């Protein structure tokens, strides 16, 4: 057992394993209970065991076990998180101090007289090495305390390689700022949702539950309650999700990726007697398989070219290091491309890194064109000289099976690995396709709205706050792996998704469907942000969105329960007087998602729009990447207020529903209140009114990967490779950037307020529309429907995506399947039958031959022997005197014969 205070990373390991323990416990006890149920009639022992386990007090125990496990996991993540924050803030403080001193010395150098310059330069060098030393100690501490390898899964040793040199798979964990924030979010929301579910699914703990949605011949379906099973799945989900966040390599991520997928499948199909629920579960599972195929392709490419799944070594190999033995490297943090030099030498190849062009928007560093990507040493050795632009690089012939260490040895000799650039693009697209499936992005967005068939707490936890955000998380985690082309694809995918989903949400009448499309749309916002270089903004929105979307879903669940499973917004209305806590809490969520200033959504959405605007400002060709999210910001406000007005304001449209509505019990309202508080204030920083000061944003910004700055942060260095200075990838302190035109990220910073104002304007517009349509009823929605029938039909039919897939994929698949079945029945079965018949005929013939000839022969021999025996046996009379007669006669005959012979011989 590692000492938790010395190795605080294990806090997170414990937090991950707690839900697994709860899962195992529930699975075991559930299995015992089922066995006891089966044999209770046969054994009195089983009967009493079953009576105990099925008792009214123990029946609700699974929920408590799962709740305690996840609450303890939250406590663990909180403890680990606090320690991590302490360490980070110490590091940031030290670095800020050292950099301040460095800047002072540099200023001094400019003013100093010639003779003292040398001394000051020496001091500057000293400061620099102090910074490097501080970073190195931090790195050591991270290696020691915040990550670990549990065991090696397997070692692949290429034939003929020296021992110890081979590719290996390790199971381990790594904690960084993103992990910490995600852990806190997931465990906190999961704890609240466990509590909420205890009340929401209370009726499932009964002996017999009536499912009103399933009709049997006589009445409705009656089945056993599934209280324990729900919490069993939920625990498994929590473990899988936390493991996904904790994993330090892509393979572990893939494993938990599938695990959360299966939990999602099981929970969507929780009411599996309903046809719609089982269809939705299948749909979710199958659509996700499409994405996972891409994920697998990405994994295989990474494995075959980089020989590792470990995040750190993947990124270190793809992205140029910041320093080599002597200099800062000009293309630090970039993917460096090169072209082969012709003709190639024998055994190894040479690539030349092209010099960059000095144009606006083009980096002057070089290495941005070429058909191959240079692979760098994962941990550069002491005497390492990095190549620079215009230089030829020696590349080993087959880097496919190299281990990290192997590549480092090569680097000492000045050799590097290389992989085709298009392969890297394919790997990035493949991984992103996995994220598209999981995060329900265009064109795989169709499964998420159907997933609302699951119980509402599941929709809140899995299909709004955590699992669907895993795709966004993975894009953020693998960010250095994505080339600019892939990032552009990500941005456009996000932009299309957020717009399409928001438009559909406008016409949905099912309260959960509105929220589902809203989730898809918000996930699109996150993807867009990641694609345009707003790494921190995208993940920031992920975190804030998790809180307010969980709140909205739980609120919707409260409404649904109060209205006795009525989900149609058109039948609600005026519920605020009946459900005051739910109503006001949901209003907080609505305001947050709409981007009302000072609510959490405001900070993150502004950040996203600012990055989109910055991106578009530098590359005006991609104007759509800003326009779509801007319009959608207004749409978001519109459909969210539409939902709230329809449900809570006005007069009750269905008195039947209204009369029975009651506020939910405290286990449901408490999470609502807590989440409402978080939706308002979770993102606050100092000063609160500054959209850029949110603590989450600041924290993420200071922990973003170098590649974000390399791709979007720096513009136009001078062309000489080693001549200028860099900071060390912390903050925006890359001084070379100030020389040329501003980069995307700097424009985003400059234009933050404009983007925010535009978004606010759109949001107000959306609110006004929602107000006049659904609150004051000045505009009649039915009239709008009649005026734009084509658009309304398009939206109601969800842009015909389902129809399209139905026509393009589902129906052809069914037709092909039918054809195959017919072919099977007709020809394959016919052939099989003909063969069988032939075999039977041959067997008959064979039988006749056997019975007639073979058996006949054998029987003939036996029969002959039998007949002979029958004939001869009469000689054996058993009578003594008969034998004697024979004996005497034989003797006499012998005597006569012998005498005759003797006479004849003698004669």
């Amino acid at each position, binding site marked *: 057992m590692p000492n938790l205070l010395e190795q605080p990373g294990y806090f997170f390991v414990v937090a991950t394993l707690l839900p697994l323990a709860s899962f195992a416990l529930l699975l075991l006890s559930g299995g015992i209970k089922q066995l006891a149920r089966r044999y209770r009639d046969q054994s009195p022992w089983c009967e009493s065991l079953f009576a105990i386990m099925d008792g009214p007090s123990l029946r609700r125990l699974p929920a408590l076990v799962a709740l305690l496990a996840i609450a303890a996991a939250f406590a663990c993540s909180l403890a680990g998180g606090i320690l991590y924050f302490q360490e980070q803030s110490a590091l940031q403080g030290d670095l800020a101090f050292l950099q301040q001193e460095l800047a002072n010395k540099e200023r001094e150098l400019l003013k100093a007289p010639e003779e003292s310059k040398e001394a000051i330069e020496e001091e500057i060098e000293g400061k620099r090495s102090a910074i490097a030393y501080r970073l190195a100690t931090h790195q050591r501490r991270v290696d020691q305390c915040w990550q670990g390898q549990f065991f090696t899964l397997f070692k692949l040793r290429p034939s003929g390689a020296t021992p110890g040199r081979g590719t290996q798979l390790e199971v381990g964990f790594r904690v960084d700022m993103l992990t910490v924030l995600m852990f806190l979010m997931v465990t906190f929301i999961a704890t609240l949702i466990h509590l909420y579910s205890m009340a929401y699914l209370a009726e499932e703990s009964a002996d017999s539950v009536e499912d009103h949605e399933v009709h049997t011949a006589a009445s409705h379906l009656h089945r056993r309650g599934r209280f324990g099973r729900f919490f069993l799945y939920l625990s498994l989900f929590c473990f899988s999700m936390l493991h996904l966040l904790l994993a330090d390599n892509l393979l572990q991520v893939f494993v938990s990726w599938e695990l959360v997928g299966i939990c999602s499948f099981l929970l969507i199909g929780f009411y599996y007697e309903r046809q719609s629920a089982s269809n939705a579960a299948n749909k979710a599972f199958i659509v996700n398989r499409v994405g996972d195929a891409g994920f697998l392709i990405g994994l295989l490419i990474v494995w075959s070219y980089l020989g590792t799944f470990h995040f750190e070594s993947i990124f270190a190999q793809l992205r140029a290091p910041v320093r080599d033995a002597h200099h800062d490297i000009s293309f630090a943090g970039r993917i460096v491309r090169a072209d082969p030099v012709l003709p190639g030498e024998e055994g190894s190849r040479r690539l030349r890194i092209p010099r960059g062009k000095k144009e606006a928007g083009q980096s002057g560093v070089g290495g941005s064109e070429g058909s191959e990507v240079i692979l760098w040493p994962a941990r550069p050795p002491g005497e390492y000289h990095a190549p620079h632009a215009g230089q030829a690089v020696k590349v080993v012939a087959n880097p496919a099976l190299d281990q990290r260490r192997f590549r480092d040895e090569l680097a000492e000799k000045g050799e590097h690995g290389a992989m085709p650039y298009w392969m890297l693009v394919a790997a990035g697209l493949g991984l992103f396709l996995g994220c598209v499936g999981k995060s329900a992005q265009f064109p795989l967005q169709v499964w998420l709205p159907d997933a609302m068939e699951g119980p509402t707490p599941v929709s809140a936890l899995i299909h709004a706050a955590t699992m669907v955000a895993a795709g966004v998380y993975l894009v953020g985690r693998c960010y250095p792996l994505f080339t600019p082309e892939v990032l552009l694809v990500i941005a456009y995918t996000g932009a299309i998704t957020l717009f399409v989903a928001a438009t559909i949400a406008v016409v949905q009448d099912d309260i959960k469907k509105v929220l589902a499309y809203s989730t898809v749309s918000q996930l699109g916002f996150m993807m867009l942000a990641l694609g345009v270089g707003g790494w921190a903004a995208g993940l920031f929105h992920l975190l804030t969105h998790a809180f307010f979307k969980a709140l909205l879903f739980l609120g919707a669940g409260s409404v649904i329960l109060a209205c006795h499973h009525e989900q149609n917004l058109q039948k609600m209305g005026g519920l605020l007087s009946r459900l005051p806590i739910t109503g006001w809490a949901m209003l907080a969520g609505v305001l947050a998602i709409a981007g009302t200033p000072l609510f959490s959504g405001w900070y993150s959405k502004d950040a996203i729009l600012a990055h989109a605007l910055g991106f578009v400002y530098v590359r005006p060709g991609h104007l759509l990447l800003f326009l779509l999210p801007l319009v959608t910001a207004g749409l978001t406000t519109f459909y969210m207020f539409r939902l709230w007005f329809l449900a809570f304001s006005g007069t009750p449209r269905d008195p039947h529903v209204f009369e029975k509505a009651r506020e939910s019990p405290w286990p449901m309202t408490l999470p609502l209140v807590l989440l409402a508080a978080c939706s308002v204030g979770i993102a606050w920083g100092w000063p609160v009114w500054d959209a850029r000061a949110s603590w989450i944003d600041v924290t993420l910004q200071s922990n973003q990967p170098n590649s974000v700055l390399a791709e979007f942060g720096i513009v136009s260095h001078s062309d000489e490779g080693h001549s200028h200075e860099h900071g060390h990838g912390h903050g925006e302190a890359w001084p070379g950037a100030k020389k040329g035109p501003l980069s995307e990220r700097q424009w985003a910073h400059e234009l933050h307020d404009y983007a925010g104002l535009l978004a606010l304007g759109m949001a107000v517009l959306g609110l006004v529309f929602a107000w006049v349509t659904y609150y004051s009823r000045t505009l009649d929605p039915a009239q709008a429907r009649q005026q734009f029938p084509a658009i309304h039909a398009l939206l109601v039919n969800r842009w015909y995506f389902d129809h399209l897939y139905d026509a393009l994929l589902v129906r052809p698949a069914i037709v092909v399947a039918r054809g195959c079945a017919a072919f099977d029945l007709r020809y394959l079965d016919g052939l099989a039958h003909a063969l069988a018949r032939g075999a039977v005929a041959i067997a008959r013939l064979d039988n006749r031959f056997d019975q007639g000839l073979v058996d006949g022969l054998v029987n003939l021999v036996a029969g002959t022997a039998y007949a002979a025996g029958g004939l001869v*046996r009469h000689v054996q009379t*058993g*009578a003594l005197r008969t034998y004697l007669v024979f004996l*005497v006669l034989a003797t006499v005959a012998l005597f006569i014969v012998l005498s005759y012979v003797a006479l004849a011989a003698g004669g």
Partner: protein
Amino acid sequence: MIDLNAYLFLGAILFTCGVCCLMTKRNAIGVLMGVELILNGATINFVAFAHFNPTFEIEGQIFALFVIALAAAEAAVALAIALNFYNNHDSIDVDRAEELKG
């Protein structure tokens, strides 16, 4: 002086009488007696050859003694069989002993 042929005739007559007795008697004791006659016929041959052939010394007489001893032993066994048979069948008619019929 009685010559060899006389003895051989006596032996042959005894042997033939014994065989006829064997074949005709149904009484087990009678059968036994026939066996004794056959053995005695053979014994006379042994002794006669031994007496008249100078190349023999005493071998014929010894053989005769053997045959007498064997006959005594055989009679004991045979009588035991006859007794057992009588116990099972209440008779010693050899024609009734036909359980070994094929």
